[in-house]
């Protein structure tokens, strides 16, 4: 085992993702003199290497890694990790990481600590703090030997490169492409862009059903805003996908975020926690949404929301 910390670079449509800069920040914070190595895949993107806050960038210049293909990345990373035997591999727990981290761990027989939100050294052990049960429980795990962690976006301070990393071009001995990217599709532009609205009344599963969505729309209208939603609501088709806030939706920073019937899964909080004023209404006093909200009320949204609208219009 070497002491190096290896970070898998995620790039989408020609851009290094924020989550990757955070993974490099996490690596820097625990490196303690060890080399931070970033692995960058893709044939025509050498330019991205300068953006990476690593000591060394391994550039796997292969056209099959231009876009994320689960199979191609897994096979390429497998051989690189096996050959270098780093102390720790850091992958962001994004769409890419939720596939790649566990796949690599299984193929290489390495322990994986997923949903990691904190990393520290305790002697020679690395201690990963992980978020489980929808953010209601924290698990601390000790990593004594080579391991993989997948880190939750938004949990570590990002680190950006100054172009000083040594760039080394390497080949991956075997890249398979049993699943291939055909095309990316950008969501059609929606009637409303929730990232540009200053007031969002955001609807969660606690609203009960699509028949109650108008209650939220009336409140939003009274506040001069629009409705947004958590993932279960758009998955159920109660509101369109373009209104979804969170990890698989949009990140919003409105002046007012009024969360109604949203418990606050980590994936949701990630997309709205930087809103200027957060007010939450939920029946569960232990709901994680209250940890990020400025004001909260434990109540049935079906009763409270119309009462709010009535007063605002009254």
């Amino acid at each position, binding site marked *: 085992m070497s002491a190096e910390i290896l970070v898998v670079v995620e790039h989408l449509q020609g851009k290094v993702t924020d989550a990757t800069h955070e993974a490099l920040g996490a690596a820097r914070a625990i490196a303690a003199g060890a080399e931070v190595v970033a692995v960058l895949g893709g044939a025509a993107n050498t330019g991205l290497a300068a953006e990476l806050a690593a000591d060394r960038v391994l550039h796997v210049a292969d056209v099959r890694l231009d876009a994320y293909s689960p199979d191609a990345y897994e096979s390429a990373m497998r051989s690189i990790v096996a050959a270098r035997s780093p102390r720790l591999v850091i992958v962001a727990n994004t769409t890419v990481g939720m596939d790649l981290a566990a796949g690599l761990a299984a193929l290489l027989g390495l322990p994986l600590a997923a949903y990691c939100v904190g990393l520290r050294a305790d002697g020679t052990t690395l201690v990963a703090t992980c978020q489980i049960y929808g953010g209601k429980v924290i698990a601390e795990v000790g990593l004594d030997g080579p391991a993989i962690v997948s880190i939750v976006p938004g949990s570590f301070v990002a680190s950006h490169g100054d172009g000083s990393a040594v760039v080394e071009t390497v080949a991956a001995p075997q890249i398979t492409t049993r699943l291939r990217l055909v095309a990316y599709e950008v969501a059609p532009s929606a009637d409303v862009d929730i990232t540009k609205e200053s007031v969002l009344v955001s609807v969660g599963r606690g609203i009960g059903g699509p028949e109650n969505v108008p209650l939220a729309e009336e409140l939003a209208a009274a506040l001069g805003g629009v409705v947004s939603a958590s993932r279960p609501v758009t998955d159920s*088709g109660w509101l369109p996908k373009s209104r979804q806030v969170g990890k698989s939706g949009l990140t919003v920073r409105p002046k007012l975020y009024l969360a109604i019937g949203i418990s606050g899964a980590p994936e949701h909080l990630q997309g709205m926690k930087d809103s200027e004023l957060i007010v939450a209404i939920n029946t569960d006093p232990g709901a994680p949404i209250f940890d990020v909200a400025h004001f909260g009320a434990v109540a*049935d949204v079906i009763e409270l929301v119309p009462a709010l609208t009535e007063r605002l219009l009254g």
Partner: protein
Amino acid sequence: MRIAVLLKQVPDIVEELEIAADGRDLVRDDLRYRLNEFDDYALEEALQLKSAAGTEVVALALDGDDVDQILYTAMAKGVDRAIKVSGGGEPRSARAGALMLAEALRPLAPDLVLTGVQAPDDLEGQLAPLVGAALGLPHANVVNGVTLDAGARTVKITQEFSGGLVAHLEGQLPVVLGIQASCEPPRYAPVTRVRQAMSSGKLESVSVAAPARAPALALRRLAKPEATGHAEMVGGSVEDLADRLVAVLRERGFGAKS
């Protein structure tokens, strides 16, 4: 064509979760279990593919307290077979569980394996890539659309990225997919049909050997997160709450009367 769906019982996280005195596990005595919600989407997607292409659907779940009920419900919803996978001894790690499921899948030789994108307790990684890698099959997670071509034995999938970006992927079967959302909301299983499934005696059981070696994660402790902040809670009747919250909003210039 055969689709296997992996179902998992998980603690209902809507309930209050208590941590055991030794800090190693949840207090399990009064814990209520339910089907992992994303597995319900995987099941629905499998049943939609069944009605489109006439594929056989087999549900599998690792043995556990409420697993019979979960498998009976899957039968009531329309799966052709339901298999409870046991063996391996207790307690078993999530990694060991994934290897056991892979072992149970091997003789079934499914063309497609579906499961939920994640579960609330998958501290050791998500199931789809763990099982895919164990079987040597390609896998993709965060999938929200699956189209099968039975003749060509190919699959087209859509994989969801943040900000509404979607990747279209394709490849040869078999593959293992972690489902984020199904094309239709999960169907409801009428109680009478669940009862029929329970009395049908058709729930199958298979026992697999304990995996020789699964990397174990050294759990130090479980804890409640230390909240860095907490909302200022307003209390009282619905009328009081409405008055207080509207005052809070108006003080900050929201919803001001014009």
